[in-house]
C-alpha cells in the first residue's frame, strides 16, 4: 500500500504530494522487511521531505553493512580531559534537537566527572559506632576513582582539573543488547556490522528500551525536534542521523552515514587528545584490534553480560 502511495506521491502536484508523502510514510513497513525497491522509495520520500523542510539538498543514504566489518570502539580514559567536544561534535553531525525548553536539547554522549578521592586525617574520628569497635570508618562514603557516581553538569574554567577524572558514556553497541530484546515491535536491532540501530519511522515510543539500557544511552524526543535549517547536516543515513520526529527514541549509532563509507565517527575526529579510537574489530591492522591486543581493556557493567563493543582502556 505504501508503495502505491509513494508512487502516486512522486507523480502528483506538490501540494497534494506532501499529504500523499506523509500518508505513505505513515504506512511504510519496518525497514528491515522492506524490499530494495521499497527502501529506495522510502529514501526518495524522505529526501524530498527533508529537502523541503530544511531548504537545502538533503541526501538519505541507505548503504547496507559492508561484509567483513565489525565496528569497534576504544576510549582511553587516561587521556580524556572532559572537554565535551565529542558531545558537541556528535550534536553537529547527527541533527539532534537543540531547543531551549527543558527536554528539547538532546546529547547522546554524557561525560562523567569523577573525583580522585580524598582520604584525610581529620575524618578519622568520624567513624561509628564509637567504643564498640568502629564498623564504618570515617573515610567511608567518599567516592574515589572510577565509579559511576559523580557530576555531569560540571563547569570548571579549564579542564582537566587536578582532582578529577573524566569518562564519556554513550551507547555501547552491545553484542547482546538488552534494548533489542525488549522492543515490542522490533524497531531497534543490531545491524550486521555491529551498531544497534533504530528505524525511527517504526518506533512507537513505548520507552521499554530506555528502561532496559544499563548505560542510559537512549534519549527520547519529548517534542518535535528543534533543528535550525542552517545547522542541519544534510548528509544523512536512514538508520543514522536523519532528522527524527516527536515521540521516538534515538541514540548513538556510530555515525552510520560516515562509517558505512569508511570514515571515522564525528566524536573520534574531534577529540583534541586522541582518546577515542574506532575501527574494524575483524581487521588485525586496525587501531582498535591493536588496542585489544596490547592494552588493558575493560567494559562497563560487564557483569550484565551485554558484551559491549565499546571498550575503555588506559596506558
Amino acid at each position: 500500500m505504501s508503495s502505491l502511495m509513494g508512487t502516486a506521491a512522486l507523480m502528483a502536484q506538490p501540494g497534494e504530494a506532501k499529504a500523499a508523502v506523509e500518508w505513505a510514510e505513515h504506512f511504510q513497513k519496518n525497514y528491515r522487511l522492506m524490499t530494495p525497491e521499497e527502501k529506495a522509495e522510502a529514501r526518495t520520500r524522505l529526501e524530498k521531505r527533508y529537502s523541503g523542510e530544511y531548504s537545502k539538498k538533503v541526501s538519505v543514504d541507505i548503504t547496507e553493512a559492508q561484509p567483513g566489518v565489525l565496528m569497534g570502539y576504544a576510549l582511553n580514559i587516561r587521556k580524556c580531559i572532559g572537554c565535551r567536544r565529542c558531545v558537541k561534535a556528535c550534536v553537529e553531525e547527527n541533527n539532534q534537537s537543540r531547543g531551549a525548553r527543558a527536554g528539547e536539547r538532546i546529547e547522546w554522549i554524557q561525560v562523567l566527572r569523577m573525583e580522585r578521592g580524598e582520604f584525610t586525617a581529620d575524618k578519622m574520628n568520624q567513624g561509628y559506632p564509637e567504643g564498640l569497635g568502629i564498623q564504618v570508618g570515617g573515610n567511608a562514603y567518599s567516592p574515589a576513582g572510577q565509579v559511576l557516581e559523580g557530576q555531569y553538569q560540571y563547569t570548571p574554567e579549564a579542564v582537566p582539573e587536578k582532582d578529577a577524572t573524566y569518562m564519556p558514556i554513550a551507547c555501547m553497541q552491545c553484542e547482546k543488547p538488552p534494548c533489542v530484546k525488549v522492543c515490542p515491535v522490533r524497531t531497534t536491532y543490531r545491524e550486521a556490522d555491529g551498531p544497534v540501530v533504530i528505524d525511527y519511522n517504526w518506533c512507537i515510543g513505548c520507552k521499554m528500551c530506555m528502561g532496559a539500557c544499563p548505560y542510559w544511552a537512549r534519549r527520547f524526543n519529548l517534542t518535535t525536534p528543534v533543528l535550525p535549517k542552517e545547522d542541519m547536516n544534510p548528509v544523512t543515513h536512514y538508520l543514522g542521523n536523519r532528522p527524527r520526529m516527536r515521540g521516538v527514541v534515538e541514540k548513538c549509532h556510530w555515525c552510520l552515514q560516515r562509517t558505512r563509507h569508511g570514515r571515522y565517527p564525528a566524536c573520534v575526529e574531534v577529540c583534541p587528545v586522541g582518546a577515542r579510537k574506532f575501527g574494524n574489530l575483524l581487521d588485525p591492522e586496525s587501531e582498535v584490534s591493536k588496542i585489544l591486543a596490547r592494552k588493558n581493556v575493560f567494559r562497563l557493567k560487564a557483569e550484565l553480560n551485554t558484551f559491549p563493543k565499546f571498550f575503555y582502556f588506559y596506558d
Partner: protein
Amino acid sequence: MLTRFVFDYARYVLKGGTKFYAWMGTLALLIVGMFYVFYLQNTEGLIVTGMTSQIHDGLYLANLVFLVGVAAGAVTIVFPAYVYHHEGMHKVTVLGEMLAISAVIMVMVFVFAHMGRPDRLWHMVPPWGIYSFSSMLGWDVLVLNGYLILNFVVGFWYLYSKYTGKPVNPKIFMPLVYISIVWALSIHTVTAFLIAVNPARPMWFHSMMPIRFITTAFAAGPALIIIAFLIIRNNTKMWIEDSAIKLLTTIVIWCLGLAIFLTLSEIVIELYARTEHANSLYYLMFGLHGLTALVPWFWSSVVLMVGAFALFMTPKFRNDMKLLPIPCAMAFVGIWIEKGMGLIVPGFIPSPIGEVTEYYPTFVEWVMTLGIWAFGFFILTILLKGAIGILLGEVRFGGAAPAASAAAVH
C-alpha cells in the same frame, strides 16, 4: 435478540436520578480534560508532562501498573464463587468481572497516554506489524487484551443468559471461567516481569517483584470492590450478602499483611548492606543528593497501609459495614502510592550511570490521570448499573420480571 439486549441495557442505564447524573456529569467533565490533554500530547509531544529522558515513565506508567493489579483483583471474586461454590459471591461474580473490564480499559488508555506515538500502535499487530515474542511488553499487550476479551465474554454471556432466561452452556462457560482465573494471575505477573527483568534497574531487579505485585493487587482490588459493593447496597435495590463482603475483607487482610511483610523485608535487605543498588530505595525513603520530593509520599503510604492493617484487625472496623470503607480506602490509597509513584518513579533515580534527577509531574499530567480514572469509573458505572438491573430481574427479555418494580433507581 442481541440488539434488544443492548437496547434494554442502555435504556436501563440511562434511567437515573440527580445523584446519578451529577456523578456522571462530573466524570464527563474530567473526561473532556483527558481528551484535551491527549490532543496536547499528540501535537506538542510528551514535553507537556514532567517526563524526561532520565525519568521517562511517570504518572501514567504508575497508574497503569496499579490498575493492572486492580483488574487482577477481580479474580478474588471469581475464584471463591466458582471453585469453592461460595453462595454469596456467586451471585455477584459478574460485578467483579465488570470491574475487571473497566480496569483493563483504564490500563489501555494509560498505555495510549504513555506512548510517544499512539498513532503507530498498529506496528505491534501482525500481519501489518511485527509481534516480538522476546518483549515483555508484547506479552503484556497480549495477556491484557486476552483478559479483557475473556471477562467481556464471560461477564456478558452470563448477563445475557440471565436476560433471556436461557442458562449458559457449562461445557464452554466453565472452562472459560477457569482460564480467566489463571489469566488474572498472569496479567499481573507479566506486568511485574515488564519492569523486573531489567538488570539496568536494580530497584526492580529481584524475584520478589511478582509476588509483591500479586499481594498488593489482591489487597487493593478487593478493597475497591468492597467499597463498590457497599455503595451498591446503599444506592440500589441490589443486596450483596454479608458473607461475600466478609470473605473479601479476609482476602484483603491477608494480602495486605503479606504486602507489608514484603516491603519490610525489602527495606531490611537493601539497607543492611546499603550498596549502590539501594540508592533508589534510599531516595524514596530519605531522599538523595538533597532531593526529597517522594519522601512524604512514601511515609504516608506506610502510615496508610499499616494503619489500614491495624484497623482491619480490630473487629469493630472489620464487622461494621459503616466503618469498613475507611480501612479499605486507606489500603487502596496506600497501595496506589506505594506501587505507583513509590515504585515506578524511584526506579529511575539514579539513572543507570549515576545521574540523580527528580520527577515533577505537571498539571497537564494530573488532568490526564484524573480524566482516565474518570473514564474508567464512567464505564464502570454504566456496566455495573446495567449488570445490577439484569441481576435484579428488572431488565429482562419481554419486560421486567413480575417481582421487580419498574420504579427508577437512584
